[in-house]
């Protein structure tokens, strides 16, 4: 064997070793059962989320009465066969209110997170990729929003714009206000995280290669940078969602949320934990326990599911599902 042949063989072996070392594992079919075995808490979270979504969506057929209907049962009746979660001081059915309230929590939570995460990601993508003065200006605006307490933003918006907002299909004026207020609270944080990722991706070899072959900035952002932010976006979404639900409950508790009165009033867990109910918590603890438990279960479910999702989507663990 000549020296040339030997050198060639060694080179092939080295290339093969290199290829093996840097090989992208083959994409495997997602197996939910395997995933559930690996992430039992995440699976449990998903079950909880599914349960909450099911109960909220199927509320009208789950032995409920209209949530604002008076005298469905005796006033302040404890949990019983007719009223599983008891009744309020005006005889409203707590079971019905808890189920219907899930709708507003999920609706506000999802709308908020979509707007906050998508908005924050988009702003981060444009500003960080553009860099320079644009990045600087957007960064300072984000700093400004981060430095203002979220409750204060909600208060200002409540007194300034909430009355003038339009009713959108599926989103009433007061709900739209909540979505905007909570999104403004989350957007700067999302922007901060995403901006770092864009800065990192901007320096990647394949981005440089795309620049060399003459791809436009828009194409690079859309085709090469954005797809690589998707995993992180999912993780941020899953972590922000419970926080958004809690924020909605907090604002409703403070009277800044959905209207708690009126014929079309939408029950909310946060609102049901405040208002006139608070007066009777010590004589009727079910008024606090069931909305509080529903809120806690929902947030808990999203939290542990989001945690597992983060692990699953972590590139270092890719291919192990």
């Amino acid at each position, binding site marked *: 064997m000549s020296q040339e042949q030997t050198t060639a063989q060694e080179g092939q072996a080295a290339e093969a070793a290199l290829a093996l070392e840097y090989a992208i594992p083959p994409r495997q079919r997602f197996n939910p059962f395997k995933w559930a075995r690996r992430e039992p808490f995440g699976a449990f979270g998903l079950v909880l989320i599914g349960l909450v979504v099911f109960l909220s969506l199927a509320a009208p057929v789950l032995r409920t009465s209209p949530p604002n209907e008076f005298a469905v049962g005796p006033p302040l009746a404890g949990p019983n066969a007719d009223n599983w979660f008891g009744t309020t001081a005006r005889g409203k059915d707590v079971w019905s209110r808890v189920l219907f309230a899930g709708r507003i929590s999920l609706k506000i939570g999802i709308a908020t997170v979509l707007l906050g995460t998508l908005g924050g990601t988009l702003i981060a993508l444009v500003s960080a990729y553009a860099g320079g003065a644009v990045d600087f200006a957007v960064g300072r605006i984000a700093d400004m929003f981060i430095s203002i307490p979220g409750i204060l933003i909600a208060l200002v918006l409540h007194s300034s714009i909430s009355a003038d907002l339009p009713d959108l299909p599926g989103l009433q004026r007061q709900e739209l206000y909540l979505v905007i207020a909570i999104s403004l609270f989350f957007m700067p944080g999302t922007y901060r995280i995403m901006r770092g990722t864009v800065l990192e991706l901007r320096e990647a070899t394949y981005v440089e290669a795309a620049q060399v072959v003459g791809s436009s900035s828009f194409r690079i952002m859309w085709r090469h940078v954005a797809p690589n932010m998707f995993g992180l976006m999912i993780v941020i979404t899953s972590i922000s969602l419970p926080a958004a639900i809690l924020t909605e409950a907090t604002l409703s508790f403070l009277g800044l949320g959905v209207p708690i009165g009126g014929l079309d009033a939408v029950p909310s867990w946060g609102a049901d934990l405040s208002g006139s109910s608070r007066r009777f918590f010590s004589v009727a603890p079910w008024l606090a326990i069931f909305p509080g438990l529903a809120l806690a279960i929902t947030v808990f479910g999203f939290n*542990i599911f989001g945690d597992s999702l983060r692990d699953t989507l972590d590139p270092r663990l890719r291919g192990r599902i």
Partner: protein
Amino acid sequence: MRDNENYWKRLRRRPVSRRSFLVGSGVAAAGSAAILAGCGDDDDDDTAAPAATQAAAQEQAAAATEAAAEEQAAAATEAAAEEQAAAQEPAPDAKRGGTLRWWKTGEDAGLDPGIFHVLNTEVTHATMTQPYTYQPTKNLFAMDGMTGFEQVDSTTLVWNIRPGMQFHNGDPVTSEAVAFSFGRLPKLYQALGGTHVTSSGFDFVDEFEAADENTVVEHWSRPNADATVYRARHYYSFLNPRMVEEHGNFESAVELADGTTEDMYSIHNLPDGTTSGPYRLTSRTATGTRLERWPDYHKHTPADDGFVEDGPYIDAWETRIIPDQVGAKAAFLAGDLDIFASVDPLELSEFEGQDHVKVYEVPAGGRASQGMDGGKFHDKRSRQALQKAFDYEGFINAIRPRGGQLAAPISDLLPHYQKLSQQELATWYRHDPVEARALWAAADFIHPVEKIKVFQYSGPPLQQEISDYMAQSLATSLGIETEVEAVDINSWAARANDQSEDVKDWDILSYGTGDSGGTTGLPNDSHLINYDPRVYGYVAFNHRADSPRKEIAEDSVTLIGMLEAQEAETDVEARAEILTDVQRWILDNHWCNWGLPISSVSYYGFSSRMRDFGLEDWLNSYAFRRESMWLEDDA
């Protein structure tokens, strides 16, 4: 290798992760909730008690008879009297005094006694001298700044001023000062374009004359049956003219009867020396007010009901601002407040077994009004349809957990004037959806009503629930879309009284919770004023004599004639007959406003250390004074 490991093996090697912490927290929270639910004890009792309450409420609603109401009122009064007697036993050798700790929901907006401002009565009652107090339930006048009065003829009232009184800065209280204080009210009313001091309190007075050093004479243009009771209000407090002119806010110049003009001043801050009452205002901040006893306060000799010669006994009044009733209740139960006069019947068990507090049952006497816009509901049939569309029995079951009763136009707290029985009231307050729809369809609407807006001020949760019930009941019975709009109280009042258009921007004005409330002793205040085409009927409900709707204008003239007749009738029995006719006319014509069922009783909480607090006095609107009251622990 790692693929062969299972989750649990890896878990054992890990430090406590965020996820583990979350899981642990979740389990702990669920466990705590379960323990809480389990430890709520009384589960059986709680379930049974409301059921029993409900059954009782239904029975009560079904048999809402006059006899039952009278029996209940008598029992309540008797029980209250017994408890009050026990609370009045003085400690013979103790020094009577103490600091009374009270609360209110917000800051006052002004302290001028002639202008109606909410949340200021603890100051305006205690820092000022009034002619006297009037106890409606006892029909009793107790002299304060006056030693007596005499109605010398049907149009002349003579006042005798208590000699030796002085304002807090030492200026003497003269007859001129008293005549000034009384006489400024109609002029202030004119200068401000109307206040809560309604014209019916003084529009029959030609002059307040300082006849001599201790005598003021009222000269009237016509007889008035309510004047003497009306003068018990804090509006008629004595003010120092010099202080008002030097420190007051200029409002406007008003034209007098003789063609001259007079500058009118309001006074909101009460600088020291403006008033002459038993207490001085020493602090007025965003957290509350503090009043301290004025040592040179005039003596009441001889002592009169609620007044004592060496009083007032209480050294200081501290009123905290607590916006939230739940917070106030917690403070009261913790022993940080002495009065909590809004106990909900459903929370009575919380107060039981607490030695330091005591809850008293008293007649409710409140009002839950639903005003109708005469601009839209000018046809009587439309108003009748609304009233028949409302489910009265359902309302009592849902909103009045300890029973309710139908509300007449005049309060039941005035039994010498309110003669309509519950049975008779039930003939008007009858839920009949079929008839309601027929009436609604037959009614004439110049302004079509496609959707009924119930308009209320935000604040009391019970107010919201009443409006919600109203909206639900009307929607169900009439098959029409309804909505509830709640705004802050100032916007509410402005829109309620807005007369820039022929119609209001609401349809039904909801106000009053009907779960508690006192009375001034006057039928106009309790609550004919709501129907009066000269007062709220005019400004709020478009039921007025100059209405563009012919039928409203004609009926207004009729009602005004009846109201003026009862105001001029000084004989109680004769007046009661007129008032009964007035009420029947109002109900027959479904006039302008209707009262929803009110609570039969209400509950007042007092700390056990309070003595001689005069339970009945707390039902007296506008003129609360009890200088014999004291606190045992501080003695």
